[in-house]
């Protein structure tokens, strides 16, 4: 390989770093610009040690969606959300051509019978993780995020009224 070709490859790597990671970060930032919504969570493993300092949780919306998911229905499955007392819950499954104001799309593979909204963990400082371990899910425990194009982009996890995204 000639020196100019090597130089071109290295310059391509520089461009790739900027475009790939810059673009990825830009997309994630933009996805979190919308209205901040709240979805309740239930039952979680406070620390998944294999994933570092991540709090694992399960959205209530996942259980609600799985109860409404028709067998053999269209994929990816889409669900309508409605506000109940300040928290969003799944109200109905959307068929082909149907729409509503707030939609969440499941990212589970077509062959799967389950529902996955792509949100099940939150990175948290180790000092906070210990206190999270002793808290049970309730009306003051929810994720905060923005919904764009059927995808939930998480911004915060509030446990018992206490935000984990803000400093200790």
């Amino acid at each position: 390989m000639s020196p100019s070709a090597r130089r071109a490859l290295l310059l391509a790597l520089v461009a790739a770093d900027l475009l790939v990671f810059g673009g990825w970060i830009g997309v994630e930032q933009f996805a979190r610009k919308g209205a901040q919504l709240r979805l309740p969570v239930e039952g979680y493993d406070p620390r998944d040690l294999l994933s570092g300092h991540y709090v694992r949780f399960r959205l209530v919306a996942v259980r609600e969606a799985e109860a409404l998911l028709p067998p053999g229905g269209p994929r990816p499955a889409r669900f309508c959300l409605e506000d109940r007392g300040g928290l969003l819950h799944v109200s109905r499954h959307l068929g082909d051509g149907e729409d509503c104001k707030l939609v969440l799309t499941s990212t589970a593979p077509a062959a799967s019978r389950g529902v996955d909204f792509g949100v099940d963990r939150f990175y948290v400082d180790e000092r906070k993780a210990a206190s999270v371990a002793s808290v049970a899910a309730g009306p003051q425990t929810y994720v905060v995020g923005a919904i764009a194009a059927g995808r939930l982009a998480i911004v915060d996890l509030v446990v018992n009224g206490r935000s984990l995204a803000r400093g200790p």
Partner: protein
Amino acid sequence: MHDLIGCPASVGRVKLEKKLEAWRAAGLLTEAQAAAIRAHEQAHQGHAGRWVASGLGAVGGLAIVIGIISIISANWSEIPAALKIGALLATMIGALVLALRFAAQGRTLVRDLLLLGHDGLVLAMIGLVAQTFHLHGAPWRGLALAAVFAVVAAAQSEGALLSHVAIGYVLGSFWMFLDHADLLRRYFASEQGFIVLPGSVGLVLLLAGGRLRGHAGAAAALPKWGAALVSVAVFAAAWRWSEPHSGRAALPTLFALLAALTALYLVELALSRRRARIVAGALVAAFVLGGAIVSRSLGEGTLRVTGFVLFCAMCGALAMAAAEAGSRRLTNLFTLLIAARILVLYLELVRNLMTTGFGLILTGLVFCAVAYGWWRLRAVVAPAPEPR
């Protein structure tokens, strides 16, 4: 034979002296030339003081780096996300810019080390973005993205270092993909899984290494990874030869793929016209494929003896191929494996230390006799070098 401060000469200097004497005795060097070589080596030898200074400096530098990492880790949550991401991205770009500079100066090792660091930083950046935005997804995607960067970096390097990293990333992401698709559990639920999966991937790498002669780094790295994976298949096959198993192929499609790849590789070996390699390849194929389909209809004793004979023949052929290729280490390794297999056989069949001991002594005498006979035969067959 003493250096300036009166300590005994280093092992390296002793070896050099032995070589100089041997070359002088063979008439390849005059005494004046040998003296000039000694003087040159003495002049370029590192001084003890410089070694101590550079050692202390390296320890100090390492302590500083670890200290900085510790402080950053302790205050990780307090550091704004934008600063973390910006600093890491700047480090990645900085590594590439420096690599460009050193490449222009012809300092390819430093360039490759910087690109090696960049390969690690790409993984770190993927993890940092996922952590910052609380993302989750199939882990194989992150490693696959890092693999793309690593392959591009390896493409412009003549050395094998970056190629090894790229191959490691690709294989790692492939492994994670199989796990994510729940295929690993299926493959390794079958006893053949440990043979057909690593064997097939290993052969693909060996075949690819033979074709990428235009890229020296990949041509050097791919066969090593391929051989390592095929070794996994060989040891899994050795286990199957040691105990009766079901003869039905539980993974027929994969087994057919393994057989086809084996045939392709044997054809490639045959085209190389190196007899030792062809024989070694054929014996490895017989051992591995036979191990994958070994039948319960073979009695336990017949199975063990057949497996033993095949294993020893295979290692013997590999030792000869390694000797032909000029690798003393590999030759010793394969002959050592034969010795280990003999010990295992005695323990399997006899299960008695006393009898094993006498059997090993007898076997050792046979091996020594064969080695002596081989040595004498080669001395008789090989023509003596013509005197100058």
